């Protein structure tokens, strides 16, 4: 099997109910179904997750690193946009 014939997939795992899927890495596979199975074997074999997403890497549109200033800098001087002054009740977990 030649590596270049394989498709790269990004893997997202939800570690617990109520949490979001988090990106954990990528892998090679021949089909989305196979990618799911490999994700199980590569990333949650110690039962780290309750749900897996796999997405073809080419389907992800990413921000350009050299262009990141125009995305991020304008927010720097607007602290009121952060909800840091709210106290989170103990009963709310996983936020």
């Amino acid at each position: 099997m030649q590596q270049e014939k394989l498709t790269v997939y990004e893997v997202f795992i939800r570690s617990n109910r109520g949490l979001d899927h988090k990106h954990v890495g990528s892998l090679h596979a021949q089909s989305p179904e196979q990618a799911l199975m490999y994700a199980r074997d590569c990333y949650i074999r110690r039962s780290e997750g309750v749900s897996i997403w796999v997405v073809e890497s080419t389907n992800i549109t990413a921000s350009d690193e050299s262009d990141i200033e125009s995305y991020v800098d304008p927010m720097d001087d607007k602290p009121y946009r952060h909800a840091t002054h709210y106290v989170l009740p103990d009963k709310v977990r996983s936020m």
Partner: protein
Amino acid sequence: MEVATASAKTFDIGQQSPLSRFVLGLADDALVLSHRLSQWCSKAPYLEEDIALSNVALDYIGRARMFYQYAAIIEDKGRNEDDLAYLRDERQYTNLLIHELPKGDFAFTMVRQFLVDVFYNMYLEQLLASTDETIAAIAAKAVKETRYHLKRSEPWITQLSQGTDESRQRILCALDELKDFTGELFEMLEWEAQLVEAGIAVDRSSLQAPWDAYVQKFLAVSEIDYQDSKLQIRGGRNGIHTEHLGQMLCEMQYLQRSYPNMNW
């Protein structure tokens, strides 16, 4: 020489109770197949498949350990799971022969896996109902793994047999070689039949027809006509093996044989 004779007697398969032989046989099946699968580690077609195959090997070694631990309790001779795995010779191993065949090429490994996965899906499903609680509990754990194994092996068979001429040829060669060893999966031994009556074991012979039907139907999709071979090679449960098991054990047991009681 006295020591050798004594130990040969201790290990005599025929002197073990039916339950002991039964559990030990299942343990040997799992360990030997696990070792064959583990031989792919770092050699599989690509990294992801390497990890996935090794995971299957680990599932089987987990299954082997549970059966060995139980076998050690049943025989009650002070031997532990490691003694059973590493200090018995070829003639004392009682795995069904299909498990011990060398890993071959990737097609051979996956075809064997497919054939035994179908078998274990049917077998373990019935073993769940064993009146022996420990055996039923081991089956309950193993059956989930084996469902996943089949989900993994089936697409490979389809893909390789419908792939290139080369890959199809390799699948056909593997089937040709393996079909002489599938009959033994369904051959009952006298002592095993006693255990079926007691509700402990599964009547493997009753699985032949559904297994044939499943395998034939699945392979027919890839235009492969699968028929059971008239030649069937047997003997595993009685300690009679192909030439390959001795070589495998030689490698697998080397460390314990050369450095007895070695730990790390």
